[in-house]
């Protein structure tokens, strides 16, 4: 699956996007975050304040307990500040 990072999540992780293949046990956004945090300090720092991290599956806002199912594109970003 393709992961996208925006704003300070992107800056902390140090990349705008990447392809990952998490283990089968990873079935929700929350589990995906926990798995990502094991990949290095840049991830654990980026996801430290979990309640401030928004997620989108295939460009739709979702909560952290949402199932990944056939997700192709998952994005992580801080609360939005446009307008």
């Amino acid at each position, binding site marked *: 699956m393709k992961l*996208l990072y*925006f*704003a*300070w999540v992107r800056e902390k992780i140090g990349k705008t996007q990447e392809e990952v293949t998490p283990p089968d046990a990873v079935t929700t956004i929350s589990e995906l975050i926990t798995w990502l945090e094991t990949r290095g300090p840049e991830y654990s720092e980026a996801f430290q304040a979990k309640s401030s991290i928004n997620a*989108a599956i295939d*460009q*739709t*806002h979702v909560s952290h307990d949402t199932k990944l199912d056939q997700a192709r594109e998952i*994005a992580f*970003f*801080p*609360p*939005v*500040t*446009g*307008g």
Partner: protein
Amino acid sequence: MSIRVQTADFDIGQEIEALRQERTDIGAIVTFTGTVRDMAKGAPITSMSLEHYPGMTEKQLEEIMAQAHERWPLQGSTIIHRHGELRPGDNIVLVVTLSSHRQAAFEAAEFLMDFLKSKAPFWKKETPVEGEAHWVDAREGDKDALTRWDKG
């Protein structure tokens, strides 16, 4: 209905004319323009950078505009949101709504702005005159503003 996410500036008068054209059935035209302020939390800034999520932004704006047209009798609407580097005084966002009724035009414009502020995937980073560039914190008030449109 027109939705654009762009780095280029926009001309408010031109956008109104593009919607109204030669139509004679319109009664009310409301525009909202958001601009970059030179101060943030009491400290002067030199610039602002706007990042967005290409694809998701357009998809979301189309959905919310369709919702606005369902809820209010609109005769036309435009959303333009800029991204990239902006300076104090620059335009950030434009919403235009046309209706035969003034209350509908006002409410739809406010609804679209409340959505843009609290849901559309844009992020602002400010560069202050002194100190380091920082990402702008979300305002709780913007989320609250959106809830007033929730239906029973």
